[in-house]
């Protein structure tokens, strides 16, 4: 918890931010419209007396007042997917359209992959990349349970994902990170945090994001997200690619976001970084998240 002190000047209502860390995160799910209509699912929940609350900002998101939502028959049949509330933001920012070609560069366990497939109505193609062999099984299992047909899984190191034969309409980089925003889900992640760890991740994240931009077609969208607060893994990563892509402002009505920071540790950062979005756990009763929306510049890279 002491580690979070470094964010005292960065985060509004810092005391509230600290206080919420020890409160467990409510579980939540996304309605999988590839298998069931929203109204039919809500009827089912009401009929079985399942206690749920709608998200204020996303019609397919529900908070569940349950101990083991994974055991719900609706989950086992693929009508819902247990997914953290803010994890549903990056696919919405990426805004994939049916028929497009989309890359999810760091895909497992596939919550966002399947949300993207759903937004595309099982049309077009999603390439779900996951370098770790051990993490392929859960990714596959989630896709199959959710009735996803338009995903193909690859296992490249994202930094070296082949630039040919195609360019993607959209690329999502939900990067490996120090996961500070997950403290409410599993206390203890903060004990692992350090400047060195964030800087090691920073190098990986920059390389992933640079390749993602190269993989997008000119004018294509690249979304970068993490579940951490560390600027080294967020704005300082995005700042490194602003010669290749320009930032677009993110707006999710109903969800409280703070603009990305433009100053850190006494240094000024690129002023455009205010267009990125920071989501804090005490402002929405969620975990923590960072999202940036980039558009690849037309110029030759």
């Amino acid at each position: 918890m002491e580690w979070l002190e470094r964010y005292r000047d960065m985060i509004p209502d810092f005391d509230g931010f600290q206080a919420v860390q020890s409160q467990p995160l409510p579980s939540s799910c996304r309605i999988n419209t590839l298998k069931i209509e929203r109204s039919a699912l809500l009827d089912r929940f009401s009929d079985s007396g399942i206690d749920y609350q709608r998200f204020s900002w996303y019609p397919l998101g529900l908070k569940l007042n349950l101990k083991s939502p994974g055991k719900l028959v609706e989950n086992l049949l693929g009508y819902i997917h247990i997914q953290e509330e803010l994890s549903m933001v990056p696919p919405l920012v990426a805004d994939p359209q049916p028929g497009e070609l989309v890359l999810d560069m760091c895909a497992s366990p596939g919550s966002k992959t399947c949300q993207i497939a759903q937004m595309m109505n099982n049309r077009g193609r999603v390439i779900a990349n996951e370098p770790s062999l051990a993490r392929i099984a859960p990714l596959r299992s989630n896709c199959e349970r959710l009735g996803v047909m338009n995903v193909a899984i690859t296992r490249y190191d994202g930094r070296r994902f082949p630039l040919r034969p195609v360019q993607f309409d959209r690329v999502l980089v939900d990067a490996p990170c120090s996961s500070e925003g997950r403290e409410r889900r599993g206390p203890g992640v903060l004990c692992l945090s350090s400047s060195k760890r964030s800087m090691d991740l920073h190098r990986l994240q920059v390389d992933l994001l640079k390749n993602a931009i190269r993989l997008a077609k000119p004018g294509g969208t690249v979304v970068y997200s993490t579940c951490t607060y560390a600027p080294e893994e967020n704005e300082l990563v995005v700042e490194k690619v602003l010669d290749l892509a320009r930032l677009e402002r993110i707006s999710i009505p109903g969800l409280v976001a703070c603009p990305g920071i433009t100053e850190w540790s006494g240094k000024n950062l690129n002023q455009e970084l205010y267009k990125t979005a920071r989501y804090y756990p005490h402002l929405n009763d969620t975990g923590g998240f960072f999202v940036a929306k980039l558009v690849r510049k037309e110029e030759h890279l």
Partner: protein
Amino acid sequence: MSPNSSGKRNIFEPLERSFVADLWGERFGIPESVFSGYIFFQKANSVWATNDAILPRLSYEAIGMRIMNLKDRPWKPTTSALQVFGQYATKNLIRLDADDARSFMEGRTLAVESDADSGYVVVFHREEVLGCGLYARGLLASQIPKERRIASIEQDAEHCS
């Protein structure tokens, strides 16, 4: 290099739609048109289905959904695939009431009277497909994969002991 890492096992070979549609038509009476819009691949004994969209030349771990296993006779449909295509079945399907549906989702074998032929069947509760069952001589054995079963009360008790 171990035998399992030989390149051949890792290749997705394109498969004719009619090969798949004929088998599903023969066993479940599913019309061929249900499979239009999909393309099929075989890798080792597994058949995979995906939508008919661009598939860039990359090295794949999985393409779409694994829909059937050809290893044994008869071939076996996956529960995932039945949840997509099974709703169009016109034969070899079994409907369960709410209590039996629950037992089926727990992975049990049930006594069921049905005119289905012996072999794999599509199991329904009302209009919804639960998944794959194996039917023979009045017994229906649930083929729901372990990780997709609901926990039964007895199994929970065993865990505690």
